[in-house]
């Protein structure tokens, strides 16, 4: 088994403090970078590492950095996405709590690479204690001269600001996040322009996930190639997998990219509770299409999961055993996306609520057999037709649960058919 990079700090007492971090070799990477490397070389190294964006989309981090216009006179910004709101995801919380200065060092290197002198950490509002820790540790870094002006005696200046969200999953979507950072509602923006060209405050901006940034110091310390080889093809390095649901040992596990889902569930997370069988597993946060028990030999990386029609997403693995009511699971997931839709786009705003109400009705024993195809149709009508991918995030579970577990849904509607009364008389739209 490969060593650990981030998670080795998880078990160290005071791993969040500057002293402990430095004692374990922290802040060496940035020193070297500032003295020996040009910004472009940093980006190249990250490109070589095959570090993917670990917030969900998996876009190669180095490629993204290279989109920052070199000749723009505008200030550049780095925004670290710590909104972590995709159900089943909790890895960034660990990083912020226990690898605090590792994250800062990554922020410093990334900012240097893209030419930013100001970085923001956008952290979900519920993470009150995490935000407090960040603020406190930022202060320590300033006190040491690691942040602020003339860092390590070089010409590099960097200010780091913690910005708290206020309860909106959509603000994890990078353009909604930028709107929120600017003091507005989290309404995702139309693209283009992409943030790298016009992001925060109309300036070139890189948005990266906490975990993406947290791997940067090690990459620059050990080399891109070294990091790349830890993982699978085109999916460099290690990765934090969060496992929750019906397993014996839920938690965060740092493993090579491409570790099999079976290994993660059965070896690391301790397998299912005794006597239970695996029914379904969501591999990458609740929006990732669900897998059946016989699909778990898949390698957990972006490309392998995409190949079987699912996605690595945030690598939040949600395990469901054979006691799970799949109809209810889909209802709970759909309720989430309905609750979190920002409400801009017609299909997402109306479709998520509609689907939730149908699922609720089925759960209440008033299902009709047409409901299943109607739900599939609603999902299809949302899919791909909205501004941001939240619409897809809502549609993908609908499609996959209803297709892969159709029998469960059919049983639910026939079991319950005719038992209760339909909420409302059907409304004819044509009169």
């Amino acid at each position, binding site marked *: 088994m490969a060593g650990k990079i981030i998670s080795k700090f998880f078990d160290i007492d005071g791993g969040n403090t500057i002293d402990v971090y430095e004692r374990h070799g922290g802040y060496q990477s940035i020193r070297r970078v500032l003295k020996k490397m040009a910004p472009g070389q940093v980006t190249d190294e990250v490109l070589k590492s095959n570090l993917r964006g670990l917030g969900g989309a998996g876009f190669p981090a180095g490629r993204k950095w290279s989109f920052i216009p070199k000749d723009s006179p505008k200030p550049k910004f780095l925004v670290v996405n710590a909104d972590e709101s995709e159900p089943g995801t909790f890895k960034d919380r660990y990083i912020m709590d226990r690898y605090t200065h590792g994250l800062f060092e990554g922020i410093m290197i990334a900012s240097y690479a893209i030419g930013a002198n100001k970085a923001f950490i956008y952290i979900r509002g519920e993470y009150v204690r995490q935000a407090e820790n960040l603020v406190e540790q930022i202060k320590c870094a300033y006190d040491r001269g690691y942040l602020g002006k003339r860092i390590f005696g070089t010409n590099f200046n960097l200010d780091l600001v913690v910005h708290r969200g206020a309860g*909106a999953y959509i603000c994890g979507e990078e353009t909604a996040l930028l709107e929120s950072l600017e003091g507005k509602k989290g309404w995702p923006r139309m693209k283009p322009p992409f943030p790298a060209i016009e992001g925060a405050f109309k300036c070139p901006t890189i948005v990266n996930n906490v975990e993406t940034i947290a791997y940067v110091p090690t990459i620059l310390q050990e080399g891109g190639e070294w990091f790349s080889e830890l993982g699978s093809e085109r999916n460099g390095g290690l990765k934090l997998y969060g496992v929750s649901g019906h397993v014996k040992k839920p938690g965060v596990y740092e493993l090579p990219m491409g570790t099999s889902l079976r290994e993660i569930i059965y070896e690391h997370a301790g397998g299912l509770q005794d006597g239970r069988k695996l029914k379904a597993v969501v591999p990458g946060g609740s929006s990732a299409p669900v897998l059946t028990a016989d699909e778990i030999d898949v390698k957990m990386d972006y490309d392998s999961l995409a190949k079987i029609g699912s996605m690595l997403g945030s690598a939040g693995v949600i395990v469901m055993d054979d006691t799970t009511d799949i109809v209810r699971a889909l209802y709970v997931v759909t309720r989430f996306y309905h609750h979190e839709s920002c409400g801009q786009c017609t299909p997402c705003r109306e479709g998520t*609520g509609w689907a939730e109400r149908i699922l609720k009705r089925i759960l209440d024993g008033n299902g009709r057999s047409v409901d299943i195809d*109607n739900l599939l149709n609603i999902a299809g*009508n949302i899919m791909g*037709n909205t*501004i941001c991918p939240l619409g897809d995030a809502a549609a993908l579970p609908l499609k996959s649960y209803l297709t892969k577990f159709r029998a469960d849904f059919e049983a639910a509607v026939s079991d319950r058919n005719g038992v209760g009364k339909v909420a409302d008389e059907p*409304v004819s*739209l044509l009169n």
Partner: protein
Amino acid sequence: MVKVTIDGIEIEIPKGTTVIQAAEQAGIEIPRYCYHPGLSIVGVCRICLVEIERMPKLQVACYTPATEGMVVHTNTEQVLEARQAVMEFLLVNHPLDCPVCDQAGECWLQNFYMQHALHDSRMFENKVKKSKALQIGPNVMLDSERCILCSRCVRFCDEISKSNELGIFNRGDRAELQPYPGTELDNDYSGNTIDICPVGALTDRDFRFRTRVWYLSETESICPGCSTGCNINVHHNDQRTYKAGGSRVSRLKPRYNPDVNEWWMCDAGRYGFTHVDADSRILAPTRSIGEEQEMSWGEAASEIMTKLREVISVHGKESVGVILSPQMTNEDLFVARRFFRDGLGLKHIDFEVAPLTTGAKDDFLIKADKNPNTAGARLLGVGARQGSGMTVAEMLEAARKRKLRALYICHHDLANGFAVDVVEEALTAQDLVVFQGPNTNSTSALAHYVLPAAAFVEKTGSFTNYAERVQMIHTAVTPLGESKADWQIFRSLAKEAAISVPYFEAEDVFQALTAEVEAFSGLPYAGLAGQGIALRDGQALPESETVVA
């Protein structure tokens, strides 16, 4: 320029043109709710999705720029399905109360729905409840349940009126359009939100339940409310007669003119047409010496001319003052000039009356000069400042001192520009006072003869706006009672005086005008309709320092 192909039609368009605009130029209308050419683009309603070759997903036509070689399809099965899906989504929480909705007949939900009809409803679920029939301002009613959250009205208030009254609160399908609690949608342009709301969420308080839109006809015109001359359509109900079943003119709507008002008009202009069907309309020529008595046009013309000739023969031509009005058309003023100045040889002719209270103005559409044709009157030289006669103020002073013996006053309520006693003293000192206009006022009350002039919706002619753009008004409804266009009244009088006014139509007047008046020379009558013609090639003039009423 870039070349794109839309539904097989190849067109060339400037770089930066969006697909929706390009399609329009190719004669293809892509449905839209949130897109409005005068507002920022948000791409939220998703009704305008189109297929673009080599793009994996459908794209919104309103936001996507058309690029060289792009091939767009607006009618494929996939597009139609997506459109139908958006329609269906929009109706998920829609109350479907068309039978009691004022928007019925001009609702974009209904319109597109007809084109993309669904065959059976799958709507078994309860709908999200929101507030209905809320009066959110002096002119606007809001029905939140009908709102499709296109945000057009919000963007209007943020970007055009810059008054920020409206917001969308909450999120998801709980999102609701509202004004700020305790405040109103009350700005000088609020009525435009009603025009741009694609559904029946924002409706006109004034128009609510008054008539069904399919009974309305439309006539192109110009708002007479100020010197901007916003292009409008007059919506009129030809089945309704004056004082029988309500007003003939139902509403005014702005008409697009990129050089004048774009898509907008102000509320003062929009709601300022009520005088057209008011009780104060003058219906017949009337003698008001002693007992008030209606007369025929023949009688009136002959009596007035007789008296006028008397005054002139006893006291001379300099004893008569003529007060024209910048509410009159170029044609009216030209005939007035021909009759009073050239025919009768009168000297004291003016039209400008500075109002006691300066009119409101802003840096958008509203001008302090509340007249549509001040520039025209100036160019026609019918003001004291253009000639050598007395100004209106001088005329009143001279009248008081009986240096003037007769006043011929058009449209003006002189009390708007002068103290009541000044007007009264002046007018009561006259041997002859004639008032001509569409409505009675405090000035007409002092006249010996009152002549009914057609209102702006009852005649054809042209106004010259502050920037010297000549624009046309058209007859929307027939003149009330005996009233007729001002120039026709002058023609009747001229006939009595054997002065030649050889015009039968407004067009004849216009032709003579262009032949005779330098500033208008060469203007083609046929070119005036629609967007009008700028005399100085669209060069806006600074607003004149004198403000006229």
